[in-house]
């Protein structure tokens, strides 16, 4: 099939942040994907790469989109080397589907996503991570190899299929968090983990964020090893601490007892299916209602200051229905109200010394015009921009939308 035959007209269903792409392509091979990119480069077509579309609206609003390339035709599991604890998977496979297949060998990729449609390519490109990052890090920490389609039509590899490997430049790291601005991810190889033999979750409730922050500090300094450790605040009224312990059966029980001993508020225990449902609900909470979703981070010791900062945001006339935070200092907040109030709140967050990297993920077009979604550029972004010119000289990939 030639490139032109694979293209179809974009429709309103293909819209990215409200902009309908002129053309849509769903390549079914790495070569097809690479040819599309080379062709788009020659024509200077603004191109957006997408997977399940769950995070495609992130970024600055597009001026125009000439071509949207989807990876739904590249969704195969290439190899699950279960005895080696590695997997190679095409970019278009969803995380949910991948983990379902890995579970047949009692293994999993330790990444969690709020979105059922999220694909491996999109997860790597955004380096988006859920509560499990407390123990396992972000997707870049599990990634050991990539195949990339470059804008000049070449297909290249970096890393490999072994967990330990320092040969050559780690281009997999470079595309992590690149938001589709440098190259298209064709496939990715990850190291995996065995599914823990036992798991339990403790849920503790607090009347205010300060009390919660004290317990977080106590747990942080203890020998309790949590796989997921999250804070939730609902309407700034209820504060909840979620703690997941997963290890061998006796160790899980003993660790839960130790955590219980350290907490000032007696927690309830949630197990089995109820436990998975609880985490699933928790991870979706920031996204589950109307409003703007903002990501930011802080130093763990600044948690009390973050609590105070969020408490003051309503001064601008907006509400804070949900705040979820990882104890390592990364969180999401949903803000509702007038765009101008939310913009003022975001400006305040950016001005605060308690938090950093305030990025607007989901927002109305108007709000995106009021504040830059990415915030001020970093030193790394300046280096990345030099690489962008090398990787994408025609500036077609997510042009003007991404972080670089």
């Amino acid at each position, binding site marked *: 099939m030639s490139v032109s035959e694979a293209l179809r007209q974009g429709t309103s269903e293909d819209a990215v942040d409200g902009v309908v792409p002129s053309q849509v392509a769903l390549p079914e091979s790495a070569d097809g994907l690479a040819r599309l990119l080379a062709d788009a480069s020659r024509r200077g077509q603004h191109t957006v790469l997408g997977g399940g579309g769950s995070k495609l609206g992130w970024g600055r609003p597009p001026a125009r989109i000439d071509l949207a390339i989807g990876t739904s035709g590249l969704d195969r599991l290439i190899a699950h080397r279960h005895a080696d604890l590695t997997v190679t998977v095409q970019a278009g496979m969803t995380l949910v589907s991948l983990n379902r297949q890995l579970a047949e060998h009692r293994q999993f990729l330790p990444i969690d996503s709020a979105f059922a449609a999220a694909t491996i390519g999109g997860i790597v490109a955004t380096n988006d991570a859920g509560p499990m990052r407390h123990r396992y890090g972000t997707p*870049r920490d599990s990634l050991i190899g990539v195949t990339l389609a470059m804008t000049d039509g070449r297909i290249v590899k970096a890393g490999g299929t072994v967990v330990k490997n320092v040969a050559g430049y780690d281009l997999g*790291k470079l595309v992590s968090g690149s938001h589709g601005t440098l190259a298209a991810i064709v496939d990715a190889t990850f190291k995996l983990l065995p599914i823990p033999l036992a798991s339990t979750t403790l849920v503790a409730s607090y009347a205010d964020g300060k009390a919660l922050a004290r317990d977080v500090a106590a747990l942080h300094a203890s020998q309790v090893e949590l796989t997921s450790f999250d804070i939730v605040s609902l309407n700034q009224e209820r504060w909840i601490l979620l703690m997941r312990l997963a290890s061998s059966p006796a160790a899980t029980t003993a660790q839960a007892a130790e955590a219980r001993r350290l907490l000032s508020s007696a927690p309830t225990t949630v197990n089995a299916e109820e436990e998975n449902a609880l985490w699933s609900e928790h991870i979706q909470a920031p996204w589950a209602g109307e409003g703007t979703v903002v990501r930011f981070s802080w130093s763990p010791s600044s948690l009390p200051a973050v609590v105070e900062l969020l408490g003051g945001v309503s001064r601008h006339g907006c509400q804070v229905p949900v705040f979820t935070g990882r104890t390592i200092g990364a969180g999401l907040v949903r803000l509702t109200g007038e765009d101008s109030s939310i913009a003022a709140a975001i400006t305040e967050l950016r001005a605060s010394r308690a938090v950093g990297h305030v990025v607007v993920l989901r927002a109305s077009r108007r709000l995106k015009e009021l504040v830059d979604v990415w915030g001020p550029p*970093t*030193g790394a972004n300046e280096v990345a921009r030099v690489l962008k010119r090398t990787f994408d000289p025609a500036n077609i990939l997510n042009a003007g939308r991404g972080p670089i």
Partner: protein
Amino acid sequence: MDQRIVDLFREAIGPDAVLTEPVQLVTYECDALPHLRSLPEVVVLPRSAADVQKIVRICDREAVPFVARGHGTGLSGGALPVPGGVIISLARLNRVLDVDIPNRRVTVEPGVTNLEITRQVAPFGYYYAPDPSSQQVCSLGGNIAENSGGAHCLKYGFTVHHILAVEAVLPNGDLVQIGSPLADAPGPDVLGLLVGSEGTLAVVTKAVVRILRKPESVQTLLAAFDSISAAGAAVSEIIAAGIVPAAVEMMDQVAIEAAEAAVHPNFPPADTILIVELDGPSPEVAELFGIVEATCRQTGATRVEIARDEAQRQRIWKGRKAAFAAMGRISPNYYVQDGVVPRTKLPDVLGRIRQLAERESIRIGNVFHAGDGNLHPLICYDERIAGQSALAERVAGEILIYCVEAGGSITGEHGVGADKTEFMPKMFSADSLDVMQSVRDAIDPKRLCNPGKVLPTPRLCGEVPGPYREHPVERAGLAERF
């Protein structure tokens, strides 16, 4: 080098920070891969990031190649001097700038040793996880360049997983902050690219590292097996049981013999020795360690010894960590190789290595990180016998081909450096290497930053492959090869 440029260096950072006397320069002619050596013409010893910037700016303006160097313990010739170039030693940037226990991070200059970070935080119950065996003397800057691992990286990952941010001087002299002490800095992971780039993209002048809580409990056992395949089966069973050990190490007969001759760890007689270490919360370690012990016995261990205390644990590790240096007890010279295979291919590849040893009538000892398939074959030879040095080098190269054919890598932790650039095309296509070169050219368009390393280019002049010679730090008993 032009005297004018040497004078520029002296003016920039002071005459006492610029070395040009051959007797001073000889220390810098090689790293811990001494068969690649080349006497530098100039060595500079900056005291600050501003000094590094001044030197790099002169290099940029005058087109002088430069090579950043930590403490010279690298095993791939990454710090090998470049003809006509300058060595930038970061040894004087050796301050610990900040220890932040509540936020679990430490800020250091690149000349601080790996172990010094742990020393700083140990009183608070923390440690810095990556543990290359040269950790007493190797520099953090060198660890960042090489993305160093160690025996415990199976569970804890490599240097790249423990560096939060760096300050670095780019080849054009710009000082940039890459990464962030805070999570989720938006944009491509440039820090992840920089870590492991072997000093070819920037000179790191400061780093913020993550520290971890010291595990509550550590348990170590040593199991003796009659065959590599039985030991390999034990490892497979342990991992299939859902256990991720902190370390899984193996030694074969030649390596055991050498270790016994050198440090007398009193290992039991065995074809293969397996060392398994678990760490973590006490109840977890206690429960899982029982499974590990039972698995070793079920898969045919002829003997299982459990370290009852820290002294016994240290004895086991001493035998393991001394294995490289110990080869000197049973062979006049040896060549340390570093390759990786998928863990399940270990028995096959070790079988091929044994056949190769027989065919070439050369002794090869094997010490490896069995959990992640990282092999360290030790090729024994005698440089006094004509042709043996060349044979050892050829055999070492052939082993790398086995690794690539098994789906592995030409280096797991020592780096490509100046030593293995010719093997890069065995692992990566011309297009892949070309894109990597374009990354380098984008950041270092004048090709001055550690040229000739990592990516294949014609061999450097003055680079004469030769036999292993003991490095001064090894001779002084300060470092071992791992």
